[in-house]
Each structure stands twice: as structure tokens, then as C-alpha cells.
């Protein structure tokens, strides 16, 4: 049964690496935030849930699920707040004509 937890942790690590590559490669702030926000939320959620599954029915697993729930609520909220700060400052976005 520990294989399920390890698979979940591996999937979370894969999503974190993908989000970091998207954070480097995308041309614009808004597209970078699209990669970073979603991949980071899903990656940390998968890692914490996999570690809670790996630990079994102990108090530490309940705490891990509480941390996962907290990240699941707060990480999109932080991304939304940063996006609103960028939009209210009229930050320029990427168009196809500006591409190198």
C-alpha cells in the first residue's frame, strides 16, 4: 500500500518541475502566473497527500492533510491577489507581434 503514496509523491514532484520550467519559459507575466499557480498548487497538494497516505492513520497524517487543505485554499488566493495587483497597474501583456 505504500506504493500508492510514493506514486502520489512522484506525481507531485513532476508537477512542481513542470511548473518551474513553465515559470522560466513563458514569455509574459500572466502566462508565467498561469503555469506557476496551478502547477504549484497541484504539486504540493499531491506531495502532502502522498506523504499522509504513506504515514498511515496517525496524528501526523491528519496534520499533513490540514496543511494540504490550507495550501489548497491559500495558494489560489495569493495568485489571484498578485494578478489583481498586476491588472490594476496596467501591466503590459504579451501579443504575437512582439515575439522575437
Amino acid at each position, binding site marked *: 500500500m505504500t506504493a500508492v503514496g510514493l506514486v502520489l509523491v512522484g506525481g507531485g514532484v513532476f508537477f512542481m518541475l513542470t511548473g518551474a520550467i513553465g515559470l522560466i519559459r513563458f514569455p509574459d507575466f500572466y502566462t508565467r502566473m498561469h503555469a506557476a499557480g496551478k502547477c504549484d498548487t497541484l504539486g504540493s497538494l499531491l506531495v502532502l497527500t502522498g506523504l499522509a497516505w504513506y504515514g498511515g492513520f496517525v496524528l501526523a497524517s491528519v496534520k499533513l492533510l490540514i496543511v494540504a487543505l490550507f495550501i489548497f485554499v491559500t495558494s489560489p488566493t495569493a495568485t489571484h491577489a498578485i494578478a489583481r495587483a498586476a491588472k*490594476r497597474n496596467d501591466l503590459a501583456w504579451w501579443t504575437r507581434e512582439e515575439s522575437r
Partner: protein
Amino acid sequence: MSSSFFLGASSVILVAVLLSLYRVVRGPSIIDRIIGVNVIGTKTIAVIVLTGHLFDRVEFFIDIALLYALINFTGTLALSRYLESKGVLVKRSGAAP
């Protein structure tokens, strides 16, 4: 066996942290740096919990991870609320500072 798996997972997450650190250093605007710091903080929580599993002291490290999540969220929210007021971040022409 699972200990080496957790070590490898932590190493891959650290590579992702280094990739995000490139965006923090070379970000064109200040708000790119903010989202880079937010991403690094979220990855750090996973690294802290994996380190707790490596050392068999999960109960201590989870409290540190929860505190780190709180500080990360509060800092990001405070920075974005500060930068929301017009004129702090960029000029209206859209040139990055």
C-alpha cells in the same frame, strides 16, 4: 528504499527551486519576482515535510511547515496589496521598472 526515494524527490524539488530562482533574479518586473518567491515558498513546504520523513521526526517538521505556509501566504498577500495602488509598480505605458 523509500528513504532514498524521498531524498531523490527532495533533490528534484531543489532543482525546481533553482529554476524558479532564475526568475526571481532575472525577472523583468518586480511582480515576477514576487510570484517567484511565492512559488519557492510553496516548494519549501514540501521539502520540509520530506525532510521530516527522512529523519523520522515528522511531528516536529509539520508544525514548521504549517508556520512556513502561514508566513508565505501573509507575505505574498501583503506585498500584492501594497503594489495594488496605481503608480507604485509601473508607469501607464507599461514599461517594466
